[in-house]
């Protein structure tokens, strides 16, 4: 089989594989590939790598159980913690304030850390951020000594 004068250019070959050549060049290279076993082999290798990678990723996606991601993300958003954090971050956007801000914050945090003893953590055992239920009523209680949170709901279903 007569080889065409077109060089087996590996860069061209990759761009051909990715359909990134202009139409004329794509057509020319296509004709070359039909007659060049080495380019055919190289394209086959590219395809094998692509198929293998996609198979690996598909398997991971299948196992990743992404269904709960949506709910998890929406829960986090619903609490608006990031919203508050970002609003505060926005205040520091001007770079000229970053260094003095960092210095002041460090000093304040260190001061508070020193003043604050390692005493008992205030507050109940659980902070309820949201609640949904089918019941007719719900009660929130707290044990007197160790402040363990109790949720009591009336199940109507």
């Amino acid at each position, binding site marked *: 089989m007569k080889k065409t004068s077109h060089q087996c250019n590996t860069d061209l070959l*990759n761009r051909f594989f990715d359909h990134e050549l202009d139409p004329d060049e794509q057509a020319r290279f296509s004709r070359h590939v039909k007659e060049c076993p080495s380019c055919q082999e190289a394209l086959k*290798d590219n395809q094998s790598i692509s198929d293998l*990678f996609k198979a690996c990723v598909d*398997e991971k996606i299948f196992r990743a159980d992404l269904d709960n991601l949506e709910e998890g993300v929406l829960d986090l958003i619903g609490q608006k913690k990031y919203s508050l954090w970002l609003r505060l971050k926005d205040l520091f956007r001007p770079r000229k304030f970053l260094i003095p801000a960092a210095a002041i914050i460090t000093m304040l945090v260190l001061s508070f850390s020193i003043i604050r003893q390692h005493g008992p953590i205030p507050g109940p055992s659980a902070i309820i951020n949201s609640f949904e239920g089918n019941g007719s009523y719900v009660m929130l209680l707290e044990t007197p000594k160790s402040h363990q949170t109790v949720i009591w709901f009336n199940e109507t279903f």
Partner: protein
Amino acid sequence: MNTELWDEKRLISLLKQGNDAAFRVLVRQYNNRLFGIAYGIVLDREESLEILQEVFLKVFQNIHRFREEAGLSTWLHRITVNQCLNWHRRWKRKFRWQQNTLERDGPIDYPDRGMDNDPEAIYREKELKNKFMENLGQLPREERVVFVLKEVEGLSYDEIARVLKIKRGTVSSRLFYARQRLKESLTRYMD
């Protein structure tokens, strides 16, 4: 609600209004693809899930700043890639547990590749995938990112260049070298 009817413009408009249902649509439409990108870059399932959560949170926080010239998917790709690249820098593996996943188990044999459906062939296929992912992890990160964006999303060179803010020629050369390295390391497996 028929989410199929939501075109990108409408979706973005509703996202900017803080519409929860629009956000659900966004997550459902993109979670698989973005997970594929994250996993291809960080090569860890748990980290990829965490990154994905971060990505969607960032979208929620910054959608009001989103300018629609580049397109929503370009923006999402960019956020995902940046989150992946920042991930290790940010956490310095402080909270990362050393999990012995299958990908990192034991010495790897190099049997002949079989295409039968018997357990032995399935095992060999799994080993091949493990080996491939290990090799992928050894690619320089910038080459891996380009390879992943190309293979997971089928982006053009121009699109990848826009996401990563690099030149088209750089995309082409990184992709070329990524494939070269992967081919060389898997030579024994190629027919």
